[in-house]
Structure formats: structure tokens, C-alpha cells
């Protein structure tokens, strides 16, 4: 096997008791990354999702060190704890391994177009950072997903044209995908990743057929899901190998400015 250089641009670490995972910790992740030729990863921790950037972010700094610089990390901006988050993020921007910001309007219960997100966009703009956000389709069994439908991000995408926004999960399993495609084709600063269980039939070829391969990032959502589920889709879907290389590595380097 050649030198492992794939980048998993969307994962998490450690157990979450909502579900059972046999091996969710860093040592397991590194073993799996080695097995799958994944060189680097971009991680958000579960604790930060609940509390915003703080203790969790400091833990991730150690994860970066323990992983020998392989697992980069994002600072979570929790709009309900805006001031405290921004204080930690302002410190963290200088830490080695810090790769950008993460928001999750559905989880935090505040719509993506709310004014309370302006500070994090402004910060990203001033520091040349990427923002990874959860994005999904309107869901009949999870009403909070309407807070993260891709169109809701447009006011900030338009206002902060130098901020690279990654709409995670390709907009989910419904019409969010069409919105993701529209935004990516309309704005240079918008990207998507394929993390999560968006296991829709022929999804990868539908994406590569509608948007530039420069805009798609491979991601797994470990430990919620196994990286093997999405990796084979990129490996086995018909596309030219330069596109494959972009999706598996080059785009993540460009968006998160990591792994050099």
C-alpha cells in the first residue's frame, strides 16, 4: 500500500452514550486510520458540542499532540454561550492543530441565520478560518433540522465571502441536497462533506455530476459511523482519479489549511 495520505475531514472522538461503539477512543481511531490509509483527520469533540469551546477544546489540543500531529481540531461556537466560547477560541487560534470553527444550529437550537452567529463568522473572516457546519434537510421526525437547512446560511455566506463554509452531510437525505448544490455553484466559498449516514443511492455521482470536485470533502462522522462506510463510496464510484484525490485529500488541505 502506498503512503497513507487520505484526510478524514469530519469526525468526533470518545463515547457518546446515545449509542454503543466498541472502539471510540483516540488509540482506536489511530489504528483504524492506519488500516485505511488515512493520514490526517479534522475532529470536533462531543463535550464541546454541549458546552461550547472550553474544556473540550483544551482536551483536543492534547489529542493533536498525542496523535503526533495527525488529528487536527475545530473550536465549537455555541450561540447560547457566545462570549465564553469566543474567549477560548481567541486563545486557541494560536494553538498547534487548531484548524477552524464548528457550528451546529440544530443541536444548539438556534437558527443558522440568527444574528448571534455574526461574531463567529466575523472571527473566521478576520483569521482566515474555515467553518464546518451541520446541514440537513427538513425532517418529518426531527423538527430541529429546519434550523440547519442550507439556505439559512446564505446571508452569512454572502456577507463573509472570504470564509470557507463546509456544509456537512451534503444537506442530508432530502431537498437540502439541492440547496447545497445551488449554494456551491453560486458561491466560491461554499463546500460540502459526505460525513454521516447520507447513504443515498448514487449520491457521490450525483454530487460529482452537479458540482465541481474541488468542493467535496471526504468525512466519516466517526465514531457515530465507521469510516469504511463512506471511504469505499469514494473509492468505487466512477470518477477520474484527480477528482478522487481532491475529495480524499486536496480539498481538505485547501479548506482547513492543514497537513502540510
Amino acid at each position, binding site marked *: 500500500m*502506498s*503512503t497513507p495520505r487520505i484526510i478524514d475531514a469530519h469526525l468526533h472522538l470518545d463515547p457518546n452514550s446515545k449509542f*454503543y461503539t466498541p472502539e471510540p477512543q483516540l488509540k482506536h481511531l489511530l489504528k483504524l486510520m492506519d488500516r485505511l490509509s488515512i493520514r490526517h483527520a479534522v475532529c470536533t469533540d462531543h463535550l464541546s458540542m454541549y458546552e461550547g469551546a472550553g474544556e473540550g477544546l483544551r482536551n483536543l489540543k492534547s489529542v493533536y499532540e498525542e496523535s503526533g500531529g495527525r488529528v487536527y481540531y475545530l473550536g465549537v461556537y455555541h450561540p447560547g454561550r457566545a462570549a465564553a466560547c469566543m474567549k477560548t477560541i481567541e486563545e486557541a487560534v494560536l494553538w498547534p492543530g487548531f484548524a477552524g470553527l464548528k457550528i451546529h444550529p440544530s443541536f444548539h437550537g438556534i437558527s443558522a441565520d440568527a444574528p448571534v452567529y455574526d461574531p463567529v463568522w466575523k472571527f473566521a473572516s478576520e483569521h482566515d478560518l474555515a467553518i464546518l457546519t451541520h446541514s440537513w434537510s427538513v425532517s418529518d421526525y426531527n423538527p430541529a433540522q429546519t434550523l440547519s437547512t442550507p439556505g439559512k446560511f446564505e446571508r452569512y455566506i454572502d456577507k463573509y465571502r472570504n470564509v470557507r463554509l463546509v456544509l456537512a452531510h451534503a444537506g442530508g437525505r432530502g431537498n437540502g441536497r439541492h440547496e447545497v448544490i445551488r449554494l456551491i455553484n453560486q458561491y466560491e466559498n461554499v463546500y460540502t462533506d459526505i460525513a454521516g*449516514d447520507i447513504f443515498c*443511492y448514487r449520491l457521490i455521482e450525483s454530487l460529482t455530476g452537479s458540482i465541481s470536485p474541488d468542493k467535496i470533502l471526504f468525512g466519516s462522522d466517526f465514531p*457515530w*459511523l465507521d469510516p469504511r462506510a463512506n471511504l469505499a463510496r469514494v473509492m468505487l464510484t466512477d470518477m477520474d*482519479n484527480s477528482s478522487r484525490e481532491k475529495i480524499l485529500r486536496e480539498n481538505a488541505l485547501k479548506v482547513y489549511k492543514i497537513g502540510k
Partner: protein
Amino acid sequence: MCEQRARKLSDDYRERAVQLNIFDCSIWLGSPEGFPLAREMLFKKLEKEMSDFFITGGLISHWLGKTLSAQAGNRDLEEKAGMFPENMYGIWTGLPFYPSPSGPGPVPGKGRPHRSMRGVRIFPASHNYVPEEWVIGTLCEWLIRYNLPLFIWHTEINWPSLHRLAVCYPSLTIIVETQTKKILYHARMLFTLMRECSNILVETSNFSGQGYIEYVVKEFGAERLIFGSFMPVNDPLVPTGMIIDADIEEKDKLLIASGSIKRIIEEVHL
């Protein structure tokens, strides 16, 4: 990773996918329900779609069996059975045997199962009955008589009922399907049920929790996993990838991809 490396990796995956000789227990005709972006799979395109995903045979189901009526889905399978590609069979939709349903389908006293039938799926939640022994006992006994496996989505039954059913009919092979919502959140019940009841097997289309394949192979054996794609709703490359890269022996990969289900359907008495 230069372009050449990407090509080498991709070629290697392709070769390993072909070697699996996949037999898929979850191929669906008709219009999918509840998945806004999914399109109908046309029968005439079936073989091409399968070959695009390295699938060499499988079990066909019909959405109408869930959405409209068991009979409508079964009728469509019955009409197409003569045109099934080689190595393809049907999973028919079942109903409780009392009050007696009309055919076609598994119907008591109407002779042997149809020659294309290699399994029966029930939809208790959608079809408004409880999957308990006093309601579906005679159907279960009929399945056991012909050695036909019972397929069921985990969203169509609750875990206490499934446990009771598996305990009550230990010689009935029950294949728990991981659709149509995440099985991930139910993994604790699923794994405990698999430990308690050796007649519980799992279909793999949405069995993509971290390390789940290795876990089941180690705890219960590879013969408890049955490859399913849930095409054309789900991407068959997802369960394929979970097997290709699994840290298990090659013989176990082959069991999951095709060996276990082939043995089950070979033992169906028609």
C-alpha cells in the same frame, strides 16, 4: 497522494469488491416510500444496476407489499418471477393467517410456497397488527415448515416483541433489517438479542456503526451477518465498504457477502 496513488487504491477496492461475489438480500422494485430523493428501480434496469455495484445475485422485494398491500406486491413478484435473472429470487410479503388473507402470498391451506419464494417479510407496524405469537404464530409455523426465513425491518417491530418471537420460535430464522432509520441507536438491544437468540441474524445495509462488523464476527460469528444493500434507496457501496476493509478473515467476508444467505435459501424446502 498523487493521482496515480488514487488510481491504485481505487483499482484495489474494485478488485476486492468483485471477489466478494455479492448476493444481496435487499433489492427493491416499485416506488420507495419516505425517501424524497429515491427513484423507482425499473425491472428492466435491474441487472445493469446490480452489475454497477458488483452484485451477482439476490432477493427481490416490492415496495407495494408495504405501501399498498401484501397482495399487490406479491402479485408483481409472481408476474415477474419467470423473468428473474439467474440467481435471483423473491421475498414475499406476509400477513397473519387469521382472519385468512387473500392471495397471492403465504396463505394457509393453499399448498406450497411459490417457486420463487426464498423468504417472507412482515410489516406489523405499517399493516396494523402486533407481531406476537397469538397473532402470527400460524404464519411462523408455516415458515418453519418450509424453512423459509422471516425478514423484518427493526422499525416495524419493538424489541420486546422481537425477543419474544425469537424465543418462542427458535427454529425460525429471523433476519433483522437495519432500515429504515438508524439501527445505531438500538445496538445495545440488537447485540443482546443476538447473544440470547442464535436464530437472530442481521442485514447490513445500515449496519455501519464503528467497528460493528468486527464486533459481531468476534462475538457471534460471520454467519450472523447477511449482506443487504436496500437499493435503490441506499448506496450498496456502503455495506460493501464495511466488508472490504473489515479486520476479519477472508472466509468471513465471503460468508457475509453471500455464503450465509446462500446456505439459508438452499435449505428452503419447496
